[in-house]
């Protein structure tokens, strides 16, 4: 088990090294900072961003937008998901809405939101529209996957209805909520940044990337990308930790 773990870690490291190696080679072959800067100068650019004057507001506001969008999606997704999971008619009503939301290109939402909303609201709206269907769908799936045998057992033992919901259904959907939240976050961060690029709020990673691109600062565009990846992985890790704390029975 332990040997296998170290072996996998080794392979992961190898993959990262290979990726950086290819990057270095390609940048050498172009030989131009304007097209593809080498990894080391990008690293320097990334570190410089951390001490740039508006770094905190830029990153902070992007994260804040993401969290607001996530919170709204989370609450509505679980609420509506539970209703739809427990009621066929409501599920039939909600289904086309969820399918539409999931299959609409993110850019359509953005272009419409740009017309409809204030600039600051656009990324939050986009975050909500991309994250909500993931969480809601997962909650519905979770309820459908609740072990009927356990519900039957509880009914035979005349366990009251509210206790069955609380002690049988809710714990059963917790893992589904987490996996929904995790996919939602994965898509959400990307969507927010696209939203920021196009709506140009005063501060935001998307805004900063757009500015860097305008001045052909390729290393800065990549540097912001790296920061975006770091934010996304940080929240992914956080979710996993919280899940391990809550789902202790596995």
């Amino acid at each position, binding site marked *: 088990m332990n040997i296998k773990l170290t072996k996998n870690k080794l392979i992961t490291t190898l993959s990262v090294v290979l990726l950086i190696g290819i990057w270095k080679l390609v940048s050498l072959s172009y030989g131009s900072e304007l097209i593809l800067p080498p990894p080391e100068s990008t690293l320097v650019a990334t570190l410089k961003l951390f001490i740039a004057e508006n770094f905190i507001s830029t990153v902070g506001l992007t994260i804040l937008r993401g969290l607001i969008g996530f919170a709204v999606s989370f609450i509505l997704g679980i609420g509506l998901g539970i209703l739809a999971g427990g009621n066929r008619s409501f599920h039939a009503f909600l289904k086309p809405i969820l399918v539409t939301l999931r299959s609409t290109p993110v850019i359509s939402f953005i272009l419409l939101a740009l017309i409809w909303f204030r600039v600051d609201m656009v990324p939050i709206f986009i975050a909500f529209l991309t994250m909500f269907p993931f969480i809601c769908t997962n909650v519905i799936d979770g309820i459908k996957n609740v072990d009927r045998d356990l519900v039957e057992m509880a009914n*035979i*033992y005349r*366990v009251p209805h509210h206790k069955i919901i609380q*002690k049988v259904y809710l*714990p*059963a959907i917790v893992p589904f909520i987490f996996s929904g939240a995790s996919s939602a976050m994965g898509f959400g961060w990307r969507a927010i940044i696209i939203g920021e690029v196009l709506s140009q709020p005063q501060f935001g990673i998307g805004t900063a990337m757009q500015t860097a691109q305008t001045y052909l600062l390729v290393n800065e565009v990549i540097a912001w990308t790296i920061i975006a990846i770091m934010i996304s992985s940080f929240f992914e890790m956080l979710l996993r930790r919280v899940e391990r704390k809550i789902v*202790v*029975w596995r």
Partner: protein
Amino acid sequence: MMNLQIKKLYKSFDDIILFKDFDIDFSEHTISCILGPSGCGKTTLLNMISNTTQPDSGNFMGFNDKIISYIFQEPRLLPWKTVLENISFVLDDSLSKKEKDSIALKYSQLVELEKFNNYYPSKLSGGMKQRVAIARAFSYPSDIILMDEPLKALDLRLKMNLIKAFRRLWQMDKRTVIFVTHDIDEALLLGNDIYIFSKAPVEIKRKFVITEKERSLHAPSFLKLKNEIWEQMD
């Protein structure tokens, strides 16, 4: 002693007639075993008694106000609850938490799981999980315990262990037990009354009554009985 009676029972699924003008009596405070080929409707009978399946028609007499515990083929434990919590889950909420805990504790001790009180089911073996299910059934203040081949998935040694645990609990608290199985040994070790069911539509081919308290599969009287039962089975 009041008996539990089922009269003129009819039940079919699609084209299969399981019960047709079927009568059976169960003595109270007795372990009744039902032996029969698989698919003959044994489980359906239990489900009709527990009200999870509706009969097409028939009279169930003496069952109305009875409270029922059920030990299923699978343990059916809540994965997110520990041994103790799984037992107290079925207990009435009008009891205080302390009362429920002490009941759960008592029954986990009776099935010799007190060292595992705070374990989640995923950390228990199949036999231990089934013992929790037995403890849950007895901790619940029921009149009737229904058992649907709860030992099916277990090996012989665990089976004997569980049968011992079950008999010990039952000796202290003689509830009406209806136990469905297709294993003759289980019926000989546990049953007071043994009913042999035919293939569907079900008829009772024969009823055996065992009065001995000490059970041994190697005793000559049991071997003889086993042969007689064997001859009745399809």
